């Protein structure tokens, strides 16, 4: 059993490296020491929670949080519906299937930063400026998530699908009744990934939102960063408040998410 001890040691070291930034973030958020002094203190000095109060009143945090939640919910809903349908369509043989796959793969290589002006012009044309739908539209479907669905649909045994077809189920009902119940892990992965990517989106909301009360959390953070360039506790308190909701959702869903990704689509 010597191997076990060695494995635990390695994993503990890795965990420390991964958790050190979180600890430092929390420590600086509860003490507003000027982190320019050398040597930095490993343990918090005179901890107090007033930084959070200052931040709460300076930046309309509830409004930003609410906007971020609404946009993320739209994005997650959109992703589930569109990715499932596209993933299922890609499992069916049709002419030009490979070229659609290559097209989708090459779409991932187009950087968002280079598409801002045309994307803005199109959204303005649709009249969705400064609105939740306008914010969520580019995020409604993600290519990586489509392939995650496609992989788990490929693993569904053909016999089940053929049986359903013989019973006369339409394609949509096959997707809903046969495919999706068997790939809950892929669903969990889709939910978490699309939530993460829409929650962290920074550049698109910056360009498309006009009024103060349509801003999302990343914009609030970027605004705070510039407004409070120095590194006292207030900036870090705000970083903690921005990260907490995302981490909370992830920690709650992580067992399903982990099970989803790690137990593979189906056995055998």
């Amino acid at each position, binding site marked *: 059993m010597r191997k076990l001890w060695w494995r635990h040691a390695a994993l503990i070291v890795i965990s420390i490296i991964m958790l050190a930034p979180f600890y430092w973030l929390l420590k600086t958020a509860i003490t507003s020491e000027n982190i320019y002094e050398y040597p930095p203190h490993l343990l918090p000095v005179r901890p107090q929670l*007033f930084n959070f*109060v200052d931040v709460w*009143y300076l930046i309309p945090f509830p409004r930003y949080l609410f906007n971020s939640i609404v946009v993320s919910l739209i994005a997650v809903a959109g992703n589930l519906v569109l990715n499932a349908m596209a993933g299922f369509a890609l499992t069916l043989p049709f002419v030009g299937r490979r070229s659609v796959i290559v097209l989708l793969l090459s779409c991932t290589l187009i950087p968002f930063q280079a598409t801002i002006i045309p994307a803005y012009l199109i959204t303005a044309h649709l009249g969705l400026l400064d609105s939740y739908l306008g914010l969520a539209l580019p995020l409604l479907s993600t290519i990586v998530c489509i392939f995650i669905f496609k992989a788990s649909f490929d693993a569904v045994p053909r016999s089940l699908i053929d049986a359903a077809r013989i019973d006369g189920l339409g394609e949509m009902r096959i997707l809903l009744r046969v495919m999706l119940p068997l790939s809950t892990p892929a669903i969990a992965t889709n939910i978490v990934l699309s939530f993460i990517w829409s929650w962290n989106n920074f550049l698109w909301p910056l360009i498309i939102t006009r009024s103060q009360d349509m801003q999302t959390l990343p914009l609030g953070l970027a605004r705070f960063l510039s*407004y409070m360039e120095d590194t006292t506790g*207030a900036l870090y308190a705000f970083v903690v408040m921005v990260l907490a909701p995302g981490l909370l959702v992830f920690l709650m869903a992580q067992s399903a998410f982990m099970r989803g990704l790690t137990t593979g689509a189906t056995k055998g």
Partner: protein
Amino acid sequence: MRWRRILLSRFFIVPAVLLLGTGAWNVYVDLHAHGLLEGSVIDAAGKPVAGATVILSVHDFVTQVEKARTRTDAAGRFRFDDNPSHLIQLQAQDGTEASPRVTIRLWFRGQDRVVTEPLRLAPNA
């Protein structure tokens, strides 16, 4: 039976607890946010000072704005009832003597607070 499983699942309990906590906190804030602020002024020897002016200034990240002034009563006590902020500074002045600026941090705007530590006047250095 399905409802019981959902009610006990994490996805219901955690948001419910959060909402309950926010609601309770809001009620507590409404009951205690009248902006009352009381304290006392003493001189270098520790005797209460009557008629000293006390300045309340609101401390923002960038600027510092004086919001209100009051005078202490015969027993050297002063009272503000319109404190608008959560981060304020108090300073007592009596003729040439002045006390150091005391920073007071509150948990929410206008929290009623009795400042236990009196403002001690010191000869203006």
